[in-house]
């Protein structure tokens, strides 16, 4: 009704030509103003993010060794073929996938659990939140060294076990143990950020909704499953994607905790790129590995978002 009235008014009183000209000029000016405001940000984004990505794609198709005197030679998909032919790099990619998937799951599980425990604001919980966030403040390199000192063959835990007459636990000297130790350390160091996200998400759930569910007789589990968790959906999506991508890039903790060992059992793709391919001056290969990492991150992000969308649509249809 309102729209119709407005339309008819506009038709009945056409603007004089001089006014239209002015209006067009004003529109152009407005567009130019908007463009000039956006342009610096777009330029920075393109220059610092898009261009390096395009360079990486380009280098991944060459045999470039990174030396200024060498002209990169186009080799097609040879670097990618090489990656998929090498059992070592394939193993590294599988391991990275495991670290990202399991680590992300554990990080979010721990963060959500702690967020539910610490959601009420009181002195103890405020202190608890600070303590839980604290590991994230430390550099991952420091975290790695710290846990190496605790869990190494002569670390605090094994020394204590020795005093108690127990045998050593091979936290860092057995391939499987070293992998799960590394995942555990990453979870410890990273879940603080996800905790903050979940705490923020919990604050947005309307108290009336929870109250209504309680009045309807919902128990704690039903309350979580039917009210809290659906409301936390967008938060969980962001938390899973950010933690997954962060874990796909796992590098510094590998350097300081395990050095990729024993026998390459904790070598992630980012470690392979930065500590193996780059020092061996295989920039083309390192770029191809980076491109695969990007694709993996993109797949992860889009998959989680698609699942989220599907879940939302399902909920709306109900």
């Amino acid at each position: 009704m309102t729209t119709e009235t407005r339309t008819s008014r506009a038709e009945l009183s056409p603007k004089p030509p001089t006014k239209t000209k002015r209006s067009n000029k004003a529109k152009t000016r407005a567009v130019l103003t908007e463009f000039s405001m956006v342009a610096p940000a777009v330029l920075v984004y393109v220059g610092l993010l898009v261009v390096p990505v395009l360079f990486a794609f380009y280098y991944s198709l060459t045999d470039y060794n990174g030396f200024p005197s060498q002209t990169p030679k186009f080799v097609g998909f040879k670097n990618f073929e090489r990656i998929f032919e090498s059992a070592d790099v394939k193993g590294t990619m599988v391991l990275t996938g495991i670290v990202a998937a399991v680590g992300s799951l554990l990080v979010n599980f721990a963060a959500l659990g702690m967020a539910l425990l610490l959601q009420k604001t009181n002195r103890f919980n405020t202190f608890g939140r600070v303590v839980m966030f604290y590991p994230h403040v430390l550099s991952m390199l420091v975290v790695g060294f710290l846990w190496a000192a605790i869990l190494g063959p002569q670390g605090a835990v094994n020394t204590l076990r020795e005093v108690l007459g127990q045998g050593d636990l091979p936290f860092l000297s057995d391939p499987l143990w070293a992998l799960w130790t590394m995942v555990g350390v990453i979870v410890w160091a990273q879940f603080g950020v996800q905790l903050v996200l979940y705490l923020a998400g919990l604050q947005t759930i309307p108290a009336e909704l929870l109250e209504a569910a309680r009045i309807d007789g919902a128990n704690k589990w039903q309350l979580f499953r039917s009210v809290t968790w659906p409301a936390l959906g967008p938060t969980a999506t962001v938390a899973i994607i950010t933690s997954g991508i962060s874990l796909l890039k796992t590098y510094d903790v590998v350097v300081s905790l395990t050095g990729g060992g024993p026998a390459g059992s904790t070598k992630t793709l980012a470690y392979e790129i930065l500590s193996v391919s780059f020092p061996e001056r295989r920039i083309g290969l390192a770029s191809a590995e980076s491109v695969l990492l990007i694709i993996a991150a993109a797949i992860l992000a889009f998959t989680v978002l698609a699942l989220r969308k599907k879940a939302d649509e399902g909920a709306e249809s109900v």
Partner: protein
Amino acid sequence: MMFATTRRRATAVLAAGTVPFLLLTACSSPSTDSGSGATAGGEVRMLVNLTDNLTQDYWNKLVKPFEDKTGIDVKIEGPTGKSVAETFPTQLAAGTAPDVIQSLFPDQQTAPELVDLSGEGWVKDTPMADTYAMEGKNYVVGVGSQAQSLVYYNKSAFAAAGITKTPETWDEFNETLQKLKTAGFTPLQSAGQFMTGLQLQQLWHPTLNIEHPKWQSSVTDESLTVGQAYQPMFEKYSKWIEDGYIAKDAVGLDPSAADANFIGGKVGMYPLGSWFVATLVKAGNLPFEVGVFSPPVDKGQDYPGPQGATMATPYMVYQGSKNLDASKQLVQYLVTDETAIKTQLTADGGFRAGYDVQTSDAGKDVQKIVDSAPSLVSVGQGAGDNQLPVAGFNPRFTQVAQSLFTGASPQDAANSIDQWVKENR
């Protein structure tokens, strides 16, 4: 509807933001803050390895007299990655390479990026200049040489185990290991990270170089494989792990903890290079006497075998340096100035003819071993014209050596290193 649109937008924004960010992180090179070359005022950027012995303060003090004398400002830079070996190629690719690079050696790929110093009169008198020359060109100069094939031992532990003589053959070595174990000592100390592969190579240098002199060149011309060269040592090492002469969990141990174990007196034998002399001196008075011997050889071979050696504290000058003259002056100072040489030899356990800087007993013993060695041979990747046809040998070798701790057979280890060479040559 509005939420769906917002979500779509959010998806696009998230994807657009995430993808480049990830690539940047994975592919980006560490930045330095001073650009690619020295300033007009005469600054030289020097990339150095920072270790327990060679600290930032040590480097600053080392170059201070040069700075005072020439007015050239030397900017010491530590690695932005794990090591200089990791940092230099990254900086080269990023166009931020330093003027002078310490601790690396040239190879076929890096040589064109480096200054050929063979025209400089002072180069020919520097240690191992010929060994490291590539087709007669000197891309690297060093302060001294470091012995690589040494076994440090605890004399008190040997006495307690009833060992009266250091082993000269592998059979005697096995016997020594067994006696040390029986006496309650860790017979052979190993560690994780770089040390696993390094020690295995150090022990095998003398025997390997008697059987296959210049074995790196033999691998290059395909008359020998690395697996063939090292399988006998893989077998010995694997057996030692199985027999408990090397602790199985040592593969997870930090190398500095391994040093501490030896210094603490728990260990019988500890293979390491001559730089360990500096650590021993730093440790002060130990409750036991330290001895050093050259690793054993096979029965029937002359003992001691060739000594593995590397150029100590090597320096290279980057071809693209904007201050080439100042860079060359700095390198000349570091490898020819008497005080600078003494400081560097002392700090990192180096040796040089005419410089009697090693005053400790262990240092003197190392000097004797170097003097009595029939020849000094290049190790690992090789040096000068005697090099393996692959880059990154030592880290890969370490991974293979560690696999012996985690259940791989000597044959698997040999196949694995051969496969890697095949894929990367």
